[in-house]
């Protein structure tokens, strides 16, 4: 009797199979960009501006050229001769590759030195003499918008102020009407501080232009190799088929490795000019001061409330500090990402949002740091606002949420900003979380502790995050639609190779994408190898960020597997000598309807595809699929944190942290949980310590790991994870994105917990991070504490 395959045993859907990529990393045999050594390779270092805003009077490179071992000193003037002093950004602005006229932020790229080794290249940078004429620095939107503010982007024709975009969405009149009928209006204003994704590995590239073949190969730390190839073709005016981007192992990305950076472009130009491979590996200060930052948003908004707790409408405004160039990495037609996803999980009839971006003398970037384009700010504001409103109404914060959350039978649910939420069990997630934390018991404990002078607090955050852009109707990057692709080839022996356009930076694609094929075809996961990251060898894809790989490339993988199965069915019919209609499928095997024992395996079909095909059937067993998702996926999460605040010092400790995630069907539960814990740690980091700020002169405070604090194993709390599963109604295997939910929804849970612990002080807000001195100030002086720059640094 033919035995059915056990899907979990062969590494299919739901199997926590161990990761295949671990074997090389554990032995120190990973291949990160810095690990490659090409014959004849030279090394490039970048000279960066020490000041935030200044006119460049002169750049003297004479002494640098004289250093033995220096091969090239590239300045903005030289880059301009090749039309590369400036480059376009993903948000339809321009960004300087190497400064020619002015420097606009501290850390900006001024010149590059290429030498025999990185030490000599650094010597070369030190030998360059730059003369600056200082200009006043602008470090926040308020300064940028002042009538006497210096014009930062005087390079742009027609730019007369420091505004880089304006944006509005929603129903203004409907919202105003709803506010007019409100019993109560709740208001909140806050600053989401500037942060940096800061993967441990910095950015880098090795550009290898071969003058004989005119082919350019670039090894680089990019989350999106295909988009980079298209961008390089457009920016450097090189033929796209002669460009090969190889994104090898990446030491963490979190959005930092999506944009095109000046260092990449300069290494390419130097390689073309020198005809030799040129390696550029950024140092941490370069990474933290010049590459894609995140957040830096000032938000003020209101909820219109009925006395019974029903939310009638929301309106809010955001001012973003975009730095010197508007180079946010986001779907190009959205100026403030998916910020309008705020309040999506609540049933609110009306909403209106406005936003304005400003140029400042700070690094550009605005990347989606472990989030789907500005939704971290959206969900943070949402959950802080929800808590404030519950407090204003004197309602229990859990009950207030329960009352307003979208109900299970209300899907699909259209938000006032146009999103279509398609599935979820929001109340159930909330209940699982409340139960896990022991909500009622904690409230009693809190009261009791308060009577003895101790301050305990509980914070809740519930949210649904739109993940997995596109669909192609709404989402594109510089015109290229946000689909994704997969290619699958089954070899004669039934082993397979899957090639995807997405690119892992630690998410474990080599492990999990094989599991999707296993689920669809019954080929054991160890028999499938996953290739990614090399544009010559993988189909076009938009890359891995915004939790989009499983929703898009994962769906494409399922779809291409189904195409393979359809062809295998023809081969099975041929082998079984029956008509195709009489062939039935079970995991890994076709059999004759009504005769379960008469069957052939997928491996038999694979062999037949190369050795015994029926007349008229093309040989081989391979195919590809391009997948354009009909909608985003909508995971939901409920996070609850309890804390104790020490009123004497302002220090707060996390007591417990409960996470309930509904990310649809889990491909590999072990990996999903790893993603959630990683995200939760970043949430804790942002709430507790991690931010980049600036002094009044535009000096970056947080330009290295001594000033930019990241949590270690010592501070990071333990996490308790729970799950609820609501399959995505449109994803072929019911999966949803997950990698970022905890980083997006988590921060508000921590901050709400601290606010709860000081709920008798009248304080409405303390800006993140909730540093001890800020919390102490709030408790002691009973006032809100702003964290907006400039900071005093003396």
């Amino acid at each position: 009797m033919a035995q059915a395959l056990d899907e979990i045993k062969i590494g299919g859907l739901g199997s926590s199979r161990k990761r295949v990529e671990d074997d090389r990393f554990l032995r120190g045999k990973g291949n990160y960009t810095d690990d490659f050594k090409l014959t004849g390779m030279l090394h490039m270092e970048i000279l960066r501006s020490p000041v935030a805003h200044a006119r460049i009077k002169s750049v003297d490179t004479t002494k640098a050229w004289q250093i033995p071992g220096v091969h090239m000193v590239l300045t903005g003037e030289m880059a301009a001769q090749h039309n590369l002093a400036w480059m376009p950004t993903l948000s339809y602005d321009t960004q300087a590759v190497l400064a020619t006229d002015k420097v606009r932020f501290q850390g900006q790229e001024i010149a590059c030195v290429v030498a025999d080794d990185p030490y000599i290249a650094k010597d070369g940078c030190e030998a360059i003499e730059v003369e600056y004429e200082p200009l006043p620095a602008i470090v926040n939107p308020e300064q940028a918008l002042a009538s006497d503010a210096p014009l930062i982007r005087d390079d742009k024709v027609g730019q007369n102020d420091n505004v880089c975009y304006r944006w509005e969405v929603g129903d203004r009149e409907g919202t105003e009407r709803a506010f007019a009928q409100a019993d109560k209006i709740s208001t909140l204003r806050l600053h989401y501080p500037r942060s940096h994704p800061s993967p441990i590995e910095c950015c880098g590239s090795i550009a290898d232009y071969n003058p004989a073949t005119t082919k350019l190969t670039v090894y680089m730390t990019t989350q999106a190799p295909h988009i980079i190839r298209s961008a390089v073709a457009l920016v450097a005016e090189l033929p796209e088929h002669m460009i090969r981007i190889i994104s090898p192992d990446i030491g963490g990305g979190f959005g930092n490795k999506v944009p095109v950076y000046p260092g990449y472009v300069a290494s390419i130009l130097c390689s073309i000019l020198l005809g030799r491979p040129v390696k550029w590996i950024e140092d941490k200060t370069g990474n933290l001061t010049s590459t894609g930052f995140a957040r830096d948003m000032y938000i003020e908004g209101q909820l219109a409330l009925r006395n019974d707790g029903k939310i009638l409408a929301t309106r809010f405004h955001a001012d973003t500090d975009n730095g010197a160039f508007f180079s946010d990495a986001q779907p190009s037609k959205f100026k403030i990402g998916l910020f309008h996803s705020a309040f999506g999980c609540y049933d609110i009839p009306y909403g209106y949002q406005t936003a304005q971006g400003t140029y400042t003398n700070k690094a550009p970037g605005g990347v989606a740091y472990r989030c789907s384009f500005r939704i971290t700010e959206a969900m943070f504001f949402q959950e802080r606002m929800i808590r404030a409103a519950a407090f204003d109404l004197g309602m229990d914060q859990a009950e207030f949420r329960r009352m307003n959350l979208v109900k299970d039978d209300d899907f699909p649910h259209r938000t006032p900003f146009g999103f279509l939420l398609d599935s979820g069990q929001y109340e159930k997630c909330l209940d699982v979380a409340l139960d896990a934390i022991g909500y009622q018991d904690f409230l009693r404990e809190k009261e009791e502790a308060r009577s003895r002078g101790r301050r305990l607090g509980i914070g809740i955050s519930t949210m649904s995050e739109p993940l997995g852009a596109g669909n192609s109707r709404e989402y594109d990057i510089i015109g290229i639609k946000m689909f994704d692709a997969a290619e699958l080839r089954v070899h004669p022996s039934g082993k397979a190779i899957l090639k995807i356009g997405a690119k892992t930076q630690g998410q474990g694609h080599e492990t999990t994408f094989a599991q999707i094929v296993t689920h669809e075809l019954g080929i054991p996961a160890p028999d499938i190898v996953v290739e990614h990251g090399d544009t010559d060898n993988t189909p076009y894809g938009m890359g891995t960020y915004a939790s989009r790989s499983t929703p898009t490339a994962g769906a494409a993988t399922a779809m291409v597997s189904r195409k393979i199965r359809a062809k295998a069915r023809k081969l099975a019919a041929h082998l079984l000598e029956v008509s195709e209609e009489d062939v039935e499928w079970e995991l890994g095997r076709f059999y004759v309807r009504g005769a379960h024992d008469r069957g052939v395996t997928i491996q038999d079909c694979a062999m037949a595809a190369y050795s015994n095909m029926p007349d008229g059937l093309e040989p081989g067993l391979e195919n590809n699929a391009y997948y354009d998702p009909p909608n985003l996926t909508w995971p939901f999460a409920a996070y609850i944190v309890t804390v104790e605040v020490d009123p004497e010092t302002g220090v707060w400790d996390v007591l417990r942290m409960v996470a309930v995630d509904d990310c649809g069907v889990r491909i590999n539960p072990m990996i999903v949980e790893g993603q959630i814990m990683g995200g939760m740690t970043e949430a804790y980091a942002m709430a507790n310590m991690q931010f980049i700020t600036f002094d009044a002169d535009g000096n970056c405070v947080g330009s290295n790991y001594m000033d930019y604090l990241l949590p270690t194993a010592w501070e990071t709390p333990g996490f308790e994870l729970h799950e609820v599963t609501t399959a995505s109604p449109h994803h072929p295997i019911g999966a949803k994105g997950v990698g970022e939910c905890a980083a997006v929804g988590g921060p508000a849970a921590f901050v709400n917990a601290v606010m709860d612990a000081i709920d008798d002080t009248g304080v409405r807000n303390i800006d993140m991070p909730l540093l001890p001195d800020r919390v102490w100030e709030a408790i002691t002086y009973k006032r809100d504490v702003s964290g907006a720059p400039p900071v005093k640094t003396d």
Partner: protein
Amino acid sequence: MEERRVNVTVNGEPKVADVEPRMLLAHFLREVLGLTGTHIGCDTTNCGACTVNFDGKPIKSCTMFAVQADGHEVETVEGISRASELHAVQEGFKEEHGLQCGFCTSGMMMTAKALLEENPNPTEEDVRWALSGNLCRCTGYQNIVKSVLWAAEKMRSEAAVRR
């Protein structure tokens, strides 16, 4: 710049090279000896990605010159497994999903190995404290801690069998 001779035992093998006095040990391991399992993640001795064991103690190889290693023993991640057999710490990281991007992993494992050699029966708190000089941006540490405790357990049971 004038070069200086360095004699250093790396993963049990004697190595001799002439290097500039300013060359960092991390660069020496990576560039001169080709041992790229030791990573560099910062400029300020904070991240620990470059951790190697120096005469049995974990040190940050980005903060020592190669010439200072003259006459000493260095162990890197490449030296801790034998042929196909992984060290218990490596196995632990795989079993408990203690790594994602893998960039911090070599340093984490070298620190963990040194801890377990000194303290075969650490508590969770001991492990967290020992690892507090190593940053990870991916995992949130919980699984790294579990990995080290898994390895401790395995090493203890192996030692018990040997006795």
